[in-house]
């Protein structure tokens, strides 16, 4: 007797003003670990449809988003987040049901990740987020007096285009919220590996605040796209893109010089663990925190660690720390199983393990080779290089943490997050050195993969980078006075 396999279908994207029957649809297939099949239909637009969509979101934003005070936008996003945090809400339920299927990540891991992530977009956090970039957030709503004289106001992009990549669930929320806070009409291009969340968010936002219904659109195209992508990019005045440097470079070449391009390339995270953190009480706890950073989204975040540099000479040796870390990864595997790897991913992982295994006396691969995690321990300083991801982590013993600086500085283009476990003085000293080397975010071990609300992604001003300031100079203000009706 053959069991009928149930196939679930979801329509992805969000196309205000376009009926389902007016566009072509393509299907992306996903299969869950337990064999559930999900078919995601993604829209394929023509170039004229892209242009029409751009006009529509622009017009809607001019009517409804631009005049909205930032406080009201924050309120709308907050209400959307409240629903995404409510386990009984249909949006939350579909996120929990289907994001693990498209991404392949453990369902509990996704559930915890989403909650932790959405929490950073509540009203209080969003206000802080705005305040991080604007000393006076009211500049987003109207002209405000400038200290030097005159007045200043911030305007968001005329059309913001997002290009998302990768399978980190709900990653698109970051840039979507940034765009909303600066009141930009936006069109986002879905990542084929996570084609769901952005469309859901746009729909949810329209539910919580219907006037915003036409201010966002979510589209898709295969790979780099063709004419339809060109048509959209030609309309954008700001493009925010995620992806590898090669992809980003190709995208940049397609844009007119006048288009503002905000790329977020792939990054290489690492951690530093001072001897102070390695007494017999602290070391096991530290290893547990480090393991969480490795486990979250199987190291696929830009902030995920690849290497922990561990200082020698503590009561718990670097090698013993590596053993603790291996044990914690084994524990976490029981709670949050690693994603199933396809043949190519498995082969790349095996190759990394082999390089460690055959890399000479300096390297040791801890644990069984077929475990769904891998710790490579090195006795001597190693270049900062990516591991095979999917819970493969290098632990490198060093005499002094300063020895790491040259190898870190050599990867300046890929630096972003460094986790540090050290005393306060050492934290600030190392942070100064790492910042000079190119690191833009320093967190506690265990928080590497959980950036705080209002962080400056890749060291940039996420909101300020999106706006242009319009200034009324003092001269204009003064020159206006004699022209007033009431002038004497």
């Amino acid at each position, binding site marked *: 007797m053959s069991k009928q396999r149930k196939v679930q279908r979801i329509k992805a994207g969000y196309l205000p003003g376009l009926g389902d029957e007016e566009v072509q649809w393509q299907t992306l297939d996903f299969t869950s670990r337990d064999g559930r099949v999900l078919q995601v239909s993604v829209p394929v637009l023509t170039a004229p449809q892209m242009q029409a969509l751009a006009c529509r979101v622009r017009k809607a934003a001019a009517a409804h988003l631009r005049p909205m005070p930032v406080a009201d936008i924050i309120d709308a996003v907050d209400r959307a987040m409240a629903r995404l945090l409510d386990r009984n809400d249909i949006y939350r339920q579909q996120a929990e049901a289907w994001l693990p299927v498209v991404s392949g990540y453990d369902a509990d891991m996704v559930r915890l990740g989403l909650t932790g992530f959405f929490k950073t977009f509540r009203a209080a956090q969003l206000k802080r987020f705005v305040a991080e970039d604007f000393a006076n957030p009211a500049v987003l709503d109207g002209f405000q007096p400038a200290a030097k004289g005159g007045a200043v106001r911030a305007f968001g992009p005329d059309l913001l285009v997002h290009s998302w*990549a*990768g*399978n*980190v669930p709900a*990653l698109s929320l970051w840039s979507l919220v940034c765009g909303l806070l600066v009141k930009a009409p936006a069109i986002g291009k879905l990542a084929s*590996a996570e084609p769901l969340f952005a469309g859901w968010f746009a729909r949810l936002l329209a539910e919580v605040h219907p006037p915003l219904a036409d201010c966002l659109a979510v589209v898709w195209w295969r790979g780099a796209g063709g004419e339809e992508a060109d048509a959209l990019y030609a309309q954008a005045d700001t493009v925010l893109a*995620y992806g*590898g*440097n*090669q992809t980003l470079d190709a995208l940049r070449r397609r844009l007119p010089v006048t288009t503002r391009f905000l790329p*977020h390339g*792939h*990054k*290489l*995270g690492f951690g530093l663990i001072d001897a102070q953190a390695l007494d017999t009480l602290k070391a096991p706890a530290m290893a547990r925190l480090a393991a969480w950073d490795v486990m979250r*989204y199987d*190291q*696929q*975040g*830009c902030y*995920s660690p*690849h290497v922990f540099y561990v200082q020698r000479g503590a009561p718990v040796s670097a090698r013993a720390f590596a053993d603790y870390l291996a044990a914690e990864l084994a524990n976490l595997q029981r709670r949050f199983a690693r994603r199933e*790897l396809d*043949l*190519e*991913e*498995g*082969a*790349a*992982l*095996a*190759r*990394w*393990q*082999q*390089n460690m*295994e*055959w*890399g*000479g006396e300096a390297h040791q691969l801890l644990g069984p*080779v*077929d475990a769904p995690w891998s710790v490579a321990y090195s006795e001597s300083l190693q270049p900062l*290089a*990516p*591991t*095979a*991801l999917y819970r493969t982590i290098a632990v490198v013993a060093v005499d002094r943490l300063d020895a790491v600086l040259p190898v870190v500085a050599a990867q300046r283009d*890929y630096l972003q997050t460094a986790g540090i476990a050290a005393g306060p003085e050492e934290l600030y000293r190392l942070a100064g050195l790492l910042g000079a080397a190119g690191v833009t975010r320093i967190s506690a071990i265990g928080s590497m993969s959980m950036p705080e609300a209002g962080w400056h992604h890749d060291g940039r001003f996420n909101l300020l980078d999106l706006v242009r300031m319009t200034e009324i100079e003092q001269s204009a203000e003064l020159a206006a006075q004699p022209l007033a009706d009431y002038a004497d």
Partner: protein
Amino acid sequence: MDKAASLVADLLAFIAMDDCTDDQFNQLALRLFAYQYECNAPFRSFCQRRGATLRNVRSWRDVPAVPIDAFKAMELRSEPPSPAERVFMTSGTTGRAARGRHFHPQLDVYDLSMKRYFARRFMQGLERMPMGILFPDEQAMPNSSLAHYLALACSEFGSAGSRYYLNSEGLDMPALCAALEESERSGQPFALLGASFSLVHVMDALRAQGRSFRLPAGSRVLDTGGYKGQSRELPLEEFYAELSQLLGVPRSLCINMYGMTELSTQFYDDGNAVLPSVKSGPHWIRSRLVEPITGRDVAAGERGILVHCDLANYNAVTTILTEDVGLWAGSQEKDGFLLLGRAEGAAAKGCSLAVEEFVKAAGA
């Protein structure tokens, strides 16, 4: 007779047989495993890390497969270095710096392995035929196993007048065209052998000149090794369609050889009329398809990474883990496998830097 010499003698006799039973293969594989475990120190420590011992390795399938990267990192050898040994090296075109090395104390086994199976799969009953080689000779590339292979083909199976059409100045198209014309005129079948990318160069040159040939029946082509960035990359379908069209050789006689520097035995297909073609080897080599991390055999019908156990690899290690993806062609392993390319393209799924992008950027 010392251990190595008696092993070599037995191996030569084994290769000279027409076929073997599973038992015979196993016995020799286990004898070679014991020999390599004893004499090849890096291999022994690899086995120890994998928990493989003389006691628990009971079949050729239990022999730990050494990843081909190990040929770069270590000297995998059972006999000590000698002045007479030949060293074949990998081309090092895959973007990784070090080159893998395969040490052959003498080439008797390699040569017999090559000749026995080349005769069967490429010559198909002919003793000799006129050959054109599109590859540098052994003097130019003394560390290339392919140069040695083709030299052997030319000297052992080429009739008088067989020669190389590639020299330090490049492709000798006028001479090659003359040879092809002569074959057309005389009706004497011709064999053209070389690297896949050299054949692309020939095809490009013929196209540029607007020339094509109708070689007489029985003419054949052997290509091997892929393009390696040395020519334009064209899909296999186009490659064989164009090759067949320009030379007038049916695709069933456009044979691809799949070999590796790390092996001493080659695989062939029965032409490339249907793609991907089925590759198979002689009785002294056996293959497995494994899941890359666990090393376990994949389920029937699933793609896997190819592991080869080549008994002719008596000095290095018999069993290697490749980076090639394969799929069993039929219901039995001896029906051969489809070669589906290299296991590449494990691009980042998220926003964390992947090795692949990192290596590419470093190489750029």
